[in-house]
Structures are given as structure tokens and as C-alpha cells.
């Protein structure tokens, strides 16, 4: 073949490579690749599979810790939780497929993350979902973003996406019998064109039974098990997630895949039964880039080669080419590398579960990925050139221009509401979709199946009971608006808040997984945001002593040049030695003392106004600096709450987040026991603007309640840890009352406030 001409230009473009990348392929092979080989490079070198824009930077994340048994690089991270048990943890995005077909996109996202977990030999025990959509109701754009406002059609589309995604996640999780125990959702203009759907899964495994995704043992047979292979999603997830949305998205539509949760359930049971036998050398799920990725990753991790013949691959459709078979992203399939001689045992297990299990090839020692079609070699490339030697870019980065303008905002310039307006503002915030009760979502998820969920959705974190008497706390967090205003701080807050949420239920954070959702890495501003985010996460992880066990990067969340906010989503895992010590946010008994742990106004007056829900909902602006985060203060606060928990002093705990102190207090009332669904608090001791005290989102604060007699003990602990401890007032029966020097600011029946908060999402969704 001659020098690449115009005919060839189309060649690399068709598989999503650049000309330089194509030349690199030729150099690595020492020849021109054939069409199939080029297709292999196309998917394996896609952003989605190769992490080519992020790989160099992700190395900055701290990944070591005493509890980390498996760090990044495998299908999931694994954390030691004591008693011989471990947790496999992973988070993944399914943004692009969900934007095209919300129900199937989200459902197959759940399927994919489940496979990542049971691939390790772990039984999936919980799912969480972190979602971002555009606004559910029409409205103007806030000042400070370049995203357009929301018209009626756009709002209807957003509701359609939201409803479809929630149903997709629910149906898949419910059918497979894995409880969806928590998550989060935000609504912002920037997610209208590009919704985000991140799903986290946690699995339980004996620490000495971890299975690796490795093609070990030359001569071992390679089995493909589960669903038959169709033309689903060829160039689907991998290419979709590697290029921004354009009008051409329409053409990609046949790439949508349909999930089969029943098949997945059978796969889970069969694979876990199989892994009990010790007849397997390695297991890997088939995800993006299908067989190609599973084969090259397993071979690469083991330093081996693989040879498969596509004629053996069971097909759902006729006339499929080797290219289609190798690149198909059909769901619910697994690759199993079986120890030679144990084939019959393995086949019997899959037969019992009614699943196909077909030998398609074997492990070789020559480091090549060799694809045969009826015995004839149709592709042959060194495995490493598809994986380790894939390109890695240090793309140019530059601080975005918009930052100067949005940060010029001065909180003091805001008109100060009259005291009699504050109750109305509280009601508006409680009704904001970013604050309102999420029951509309989590009621659609079976969050109780497996009867391990001992703290149901609605608290700061979910708690599962595990082993004998221990508990695992799980939460996700990530405020993209904060990251838009300052990605470093926003990312650090995401880590800190996720950890704080876990701490608020009495658990010690032991590790995190994450999903980084960004616009196009080819834009220097986006790359700058990405760097800053990584650095912010790093700083928070180091300060709080929490290792990163893995994660996922999703770039190209943009449409026609307008991208999503930089949105890191943190999935936190916490451990309670004694599950009976778990804390809940609700007040327990009238007369208990209500305390605020942490500095009431953060680092100073006006802290936490920038980027707040108050600023957006009431003043129509997205501006300022996000709340400041003093990592030392955060670490002290978390230590104090955990110390008070061990001492058995706290009756309730809930951190302040979107909506600030006033919303946090209201939520403690809503979750209160009968007769303890109110509070009478006073801001008399606090100085500063009332709207800021009530609604600013200063970090590192927790609302707690204690028996009056235990207050001194709590104060002592707080003092020892160096954490401010302000007595706010008392738990009351059924009203939320906020007083100040001048008189009563808020005096509302809890039930009335709760109605506003509870009805907001159901009302928007009809």
C-alpha cells in the first residue's frame, strides 16, 4: 500500500483515529493494518477505552492505603473491611447512551457496572446512582453561565430523560435483585443537552478469593458465556463517548443496545458458582469494545497472547463479519479463561443456569492478539500495542476566560431580604429540585432486597449490615456548580462532603471510587478544569487519608461546543465496626439540645454564598467563588463526629449542604421521630447577615442533637479536636422556629414545610 491518500484519510476517520495515530499504528506494526486490525485500534485507542487524555493525570491520585487490596487497573478496586471480608467497588458513567435512549442507556449502564463487580468474584450487594439533568420546568438561564434558558420543549425532554433513566436503573437493579440504596441528582441548565448517568456498585467478597481479569496459563481455553452476539452497539459506547454530540448522532442510533437483566441475573449466579470451584484462571466482562477489549485487556494484564476463532462465537444474527463480531457491544456476556482439564465442570455450571458457554480460543505465549475466521488468520497484532502502548496525551490546558467574570461577584452586593421574607425563601429552597425530597426516585428502586439495608435512602448515607455486626456506609457526591466556579475547590468539596456524609452516619471513610465527567479534552479550558479537579481531589484525599481505588473518566459531554460543568462524582465507602452505632439525621426526642459543629460562617462572612442554591434560586445567579474548604478543619470535624459517635453521645447528625443551615435543620425535623419533629433555635450568638447565616453553604458543618446531660461531653470532645461547637437550641415537637435578637424569623409547622419539600419532585413529574 502506498502513502495514505484521500481514500485512506477516510479510513482512519471511519474508526475515529487521527492521521498521526494512524501513522503510529503503521509504525508499531511495521505495515499497514487491514480493516479489521484498524478497527481494533480504533476502539482500543478511543478515549473511552484508552484514557488517552486522562491517563497521565490520573497518576496524581493517591491510591495506597492499608485497606486497599486491589487498586486501579483491575475491573474494580477492592477494600479490606476486616473479618476476612472485602468490598469490590467501582463507578461508571453511561452518559452518552442515556442521552440517546434514556431507559436502555441507563439500564445497560447498571448491567455494565454489575459485571465489573462480579467479574472479581464479588457478589454485588448495592448500587448507587448519581444523575444530572437539565431543569424540569421552563425558566430563564441564570446569570453567569453561557447555557441557554429552558423552554417548555426542553423541559419536557428533560423530564422524559429523567423519568426514563430512573425507570431504566430501577428495572435493571430490581430485576437482578441488587438494591439501589442511594445516589444523588442535580438539575442544571448545562446538563440539558448532556445528561449524566453514573452508577456505582459495591460487591462483597472473601478477601482471599479475589479473581483477576487475566488470561493466565498458556494453552488454557477461552470461553465466551452468556448472551449471543448481535450487531449491537458496534462503535457504540466507545465511539459515542469519545466524540462530542453533533447532528450526526442520529446516524449512531442503531448503536443503542438493549439490556436483558434476567440474563444478567443468571450470569451473576452462574459466575459466582463457577468462581467457588477454582476451575477458572481469569474472568473478564465484555463492556465497551466487546470481545476486542476483553481479550486484549486480559492478555495484557497477564503478559500473554490470545487466539480466538470468530466462527465459534454464538450469533444472534446472520451474516456477521469478523469485524462485527469483534466489535459488537452486545450486553450480558463474559469471558472466562478456564484451567485446562476443567472444561466439563465449567460447562456443567453454565448448563444448569441455562446459559451458553462456548470455547472460542486459547491463551498463547506469544503476546499476540490473533483473530481467526474458520482457521484463517484475519487479524494479528501485538496485544501491548492495543493497551499499554496506546497513545497518551498531555493536552494543552488553559484557565477559562469566564472565571474572572463570575468570580468578580461580591456577596455583600446582594440585596438583603427583609426578615419576614426568610420563611418564604426557605420554602422556595425546600421546593427546589436540587433540595427537595428524592423519594420519587428511590421509591422506584428496590432498596431493601437482600435485607441488608439497615439505613434506607433519605439519610446522609446508606448503611448495609455485613459480616457479623459490622456496617458499610455508602454515599455519592459531586456539586458541578462549585466545580464550574473553581474546579480545585469543587473537587475537594466533593471528596470532603462524600466523606462527611459517611461520617454523619457514624462510619469511617476507608476508600473512594469516582467518575469524572467533562466536556471535550481537546479544548484547553476543559483540560485545565480536569487538572484542577484531579489536584483538588488529591489534596482532599491526602488531608483526609482516603485512597482512590479506581474510577472512570467520561469526556466529550458537550454539544456544539457547549459542555457540562466539570462534574467529578465521588463514591465513598465507610466502615462501621458496630452497625448498632449508626447515626441518623432525624431528631429523636423533644428537649434534646441542637448543636452546630464547625464554624457557623465557614472561613468568614459571605463564605458559602457563591455557587449556592440560594444565590441561584432567589437571585438568579451562578457566580462567585464556591464555598471555601479548610481541609484541616474538615478533618477535625470528621474526627470529632466519629469520636462523639464512639462515645455514644450523639442522637442525630446531618451535615449542611445545598440550602445551608436552614434546610439542614428542616431536614432533621422531617426525619424526626414522632414528637421530635421540630426545633427551636436561636441565631442570637451568631453575627452576620441573616440570609447568609441561614442559607449560605459554608463547608465542614454538622447539625447534631444530644441529650441535655451529654452536652458537656460533646463540648469536651469538640474542644479536644479543635472544632467550634455552637448550641443552637432545642428539639421541639412539631414546629421549626428560628429566633434572633430582633425576634422570630421563621416559625412554621414542620408538616407544612415538609409537604413543600416532599411534593416538589412528584409535582414536577406529574
Amino acid at each position, binding site marked *: 500500500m502506498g502513502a495514505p491518500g484521500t481514500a485512506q484519510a477516510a479510513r482512519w476517520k471511519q474508526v475515529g483515529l487521527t492521521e498521526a495515530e494512524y501513522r503510529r499504528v503503521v509504525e508499531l506494526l511495521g505495515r499497514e493494518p487491514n480493516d479489521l486490525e484498524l478497527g481494533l485500534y480504533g476502539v482500543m485507542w478511543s478515549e473511552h477505552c484508552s484514557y488517552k487524555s486522562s491517563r497521565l493525570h490520573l497518576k496524581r491520585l493517591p491510591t495506597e492505603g492499608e485497606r486497599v487490596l486491589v487498586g486501579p487497573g483491575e475491573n474494580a478496586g477492592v477494600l479490606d473491611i476486616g473479618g476476612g471480608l472485602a468490598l469490590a467497588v467501582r463507578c461508571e458513567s453511561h452518559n452518552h447512551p442515556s442521552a440517546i435512549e434514556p431507559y*436502555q442507556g441507563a439500564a445497560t449502564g447498571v448491567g455494565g457496572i454489575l459485571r465489573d463487580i462480579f467479574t472479581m468474584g464479588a457478589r454485588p450487594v448495592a448500587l448507587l446512582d448519581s444523575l444530572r439533568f437539565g431543569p424540569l420546568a421552563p425558566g430563564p438561564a441564570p446569570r453567569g453561565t453561557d447555557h441557554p434558558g429552558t423552554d417548555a420543549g426542553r423541559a419536557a425532554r428533560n423530564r422524559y430523560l429523567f423519568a426514563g433513566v430512573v425507570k431504566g436503573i430501577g428495572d435493571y437493579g430490581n430485576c437482578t435483585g441488587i438494591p439501589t440504596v442511594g445516589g444523588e441528582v442535580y438539575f442544571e441548565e448545562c446538563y440539558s443537552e448532556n445528561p449524566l448517568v453514573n452508577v456505582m456498585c459495591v460487591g462483597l467478597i472473601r478477601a482471599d478469593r479475589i479473581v483477576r481479569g487475566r488470561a493466565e496459563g498458556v494453552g488454557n481455553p477461552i470461553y465466551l458465556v452468556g448472551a449471543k452476539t*448481535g450487531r*449491537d452497539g458496534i462503535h457504540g459506547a466507545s465511539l459515542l463517548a469519545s466524540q462530542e454530540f453533533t447532528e450526526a448522532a442520529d446516524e449512531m442510533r442503531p448503536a443503542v443496545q438493549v439490556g436483558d437483566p434476567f440474563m444478567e441475573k443468571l450470569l451473576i449466579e452462574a459466575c459466582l458458582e463457577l468462581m467457588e470451584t477454582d476451575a477458572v484462571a481469569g474472568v473478564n466482562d465484555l463492556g465497551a469494545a466487546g470481545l476486542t477489549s476483553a481479550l486484549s485487556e486480559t492478555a495484557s494484564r497477564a503478559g500473554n497472547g490470545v487466539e480466538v476463532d470468530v466462527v465459534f462465537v454464538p450469533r*444472534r444474527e446472520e451474516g456477521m463479519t469478523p469485524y462485527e463480531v469483534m466489535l459488537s457491544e452486545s*450486553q450480558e456476556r463474559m469471558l472466562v479463561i478456564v484451567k485446562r482439564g476443567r472444561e466439563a465442570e465449567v460447562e456443567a455450571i453454565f448448563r444448569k443456569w441455562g446459559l451458553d458457554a462456548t470455547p472460542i480460543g486459547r491463551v498463547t505465549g506469544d503476546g499476540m492478539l490473533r483473530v481467526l475466521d474458520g482457521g484463517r488468520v484475519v487479524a494479528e497484532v501485538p496485544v501491548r500495542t492495543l493497551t499499554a502502548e496506546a497513545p497518551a496525551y498531555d493536552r494543552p490546558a488553559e484557565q477559562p476566560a469566564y472565571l474572572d467574570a463570575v468570580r468578580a461577584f461580591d456577596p455583600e452586593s446582594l440585596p438583603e431580604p427583609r426578615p419576614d421574607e426568610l420563611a418564604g425563601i426557605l420554602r422556595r429552597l425546600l421546593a427546589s429540585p436540587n433540595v427537595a425530597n428524592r423519594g420519587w426516585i428511590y421509591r422506584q428502586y428496590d432498596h431493601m432486597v437482600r435485607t441488608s439495608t439497615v439505613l434506607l435512602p433519605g439519610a446522609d448515607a446508606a448503611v448495609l449490615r455485613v459480616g457479623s455486626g459490622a456496617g458499610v456506609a455508602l454515599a455519592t457526591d459531586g456539586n458541578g456548580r462549585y466545580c464550574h466556579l473553581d474546579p480545585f475547590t469543587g473537587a475537594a468539596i466533593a471528596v470532603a462532603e462524600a466523606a462527611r456524609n459517611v461520617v454523619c452516619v457514624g462510619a469511617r471513610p476507608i476508600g473512594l471510587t469516582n467518575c469524572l465527567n467533562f466536556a471535550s479534552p481537546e479544548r484547553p479550558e476543559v483540560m485545565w478544569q480536569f487538572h484542577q479537579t484531579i489536584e483538588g481531589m488529591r489534596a482532599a484525599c491526602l488531608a483526609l487519608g482516603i485512597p482512590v481505588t479506581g474510577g472512570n473518566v467520561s469526556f466529550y459531554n458537550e454539544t456544539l461546543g457547549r459542555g457540562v460543568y466539570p462534574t467529578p462524582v465521588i463514591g465513598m465507602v465507610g466502615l462501621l465496626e458496630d452497625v448498632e452505632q449508626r447515626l441518623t439525621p432525624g431528631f429523636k426526642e423533644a428537649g434534646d439540645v441542637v448543636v452546630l459543629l464547625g464554624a457557623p460562617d465557614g472561613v468568614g462572612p459571605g463564605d458559602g454564598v457563591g455557587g449556592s442554591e440560594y444565590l441561584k434560586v432567589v437571585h438568579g445567579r451562578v457566580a462567585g467563588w464556591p464555598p471555601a474548604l479548610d481541609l484541616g478543619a474538615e478533618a477535625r470535624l470528621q474526627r470529632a463526629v466519629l469520636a462523639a459517635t464512639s462515645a455514644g453521645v450523639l442522637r442525630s447528625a446531618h451535615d449542611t449542604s445545598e440550602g445551608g443551615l436552614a434546610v439542614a435543620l428542616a431536614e432533621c425535623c422531617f426525619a424526626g421521630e414522632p414528637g421530635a419533629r421540630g426545633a427551636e433555635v436561636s441565631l442570637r450568638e451568631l453575627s452576620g447577615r441573616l440570609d447568609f447565616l441561614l442559607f449560605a453553604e459554608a463547608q465542614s458543618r454538622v447539625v447534631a442533637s444530644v441529650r441535655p446531660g451529654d452536652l458537656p461531653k460533646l463540648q469536651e470532645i469538640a474542644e479536644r479536636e479543635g472544632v467550634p461547637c455552637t448550641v443552637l437550641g432545642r428539639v421541639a415537637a412539631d414546629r421549626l422556629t428560628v429566633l434572633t435578637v430582633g425576634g422570630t424569623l421563621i416559625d412554621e409547622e414542620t408538616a407544612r414545610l415538609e409537604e413543600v419539600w416532599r411534593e416538589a419532585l412528584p409535582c414536577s413529574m406529574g
Partner: protein
Amino acid sequence: MWRAEIRVRLKKGVLDPQGAAVERSLAALGYQGVAGVRVGKLLELTIDAPGREEAERWVDEMCRRLLANPVIEEYAFDLREAVP
């Protein structure tokens, strides 16, 4: 008044887990010669339109906008005049 019978089917090539499950179940019940089972939707509705042409246009529009999911489904329909 027109009565429309709308048939919504999964596009060719799109996986139909329900159809596959029904096919396996039929085989287990002893119906060996059954193949190609596909499960779709059947929608029926009455529409008040001045004439067949309008009824047709409206039903077609409804299918595109709501009743079928163009990403994975295709549709077809019949109309017959109904006594109100």
C-alpha cells in the same frame, strides 16, 4: 370518529429479551417448531377527526412523538371508521 390499531415493533436486529424468553418457554412446553418470536405493543384508540386523511396524519404524528420510540422501534397502523 376513527378507530386506530397501532402495532409497535422492535426494529430488526434489536435484541428482544422477552421474545427470546417466550421462545424458550414455548420450546419447553413442547412447541419445537416455533422460531423468531418477537414481542411488541398493540395500541388501540379512537380519534375524532374530520376525515381519514387528518386521522391518518394525526395518528402518524402521535406514533412519532409518543407511541413508538424511534430509536429502537418502528410502527404501522390501520384505521377504520367507527360509529361514535
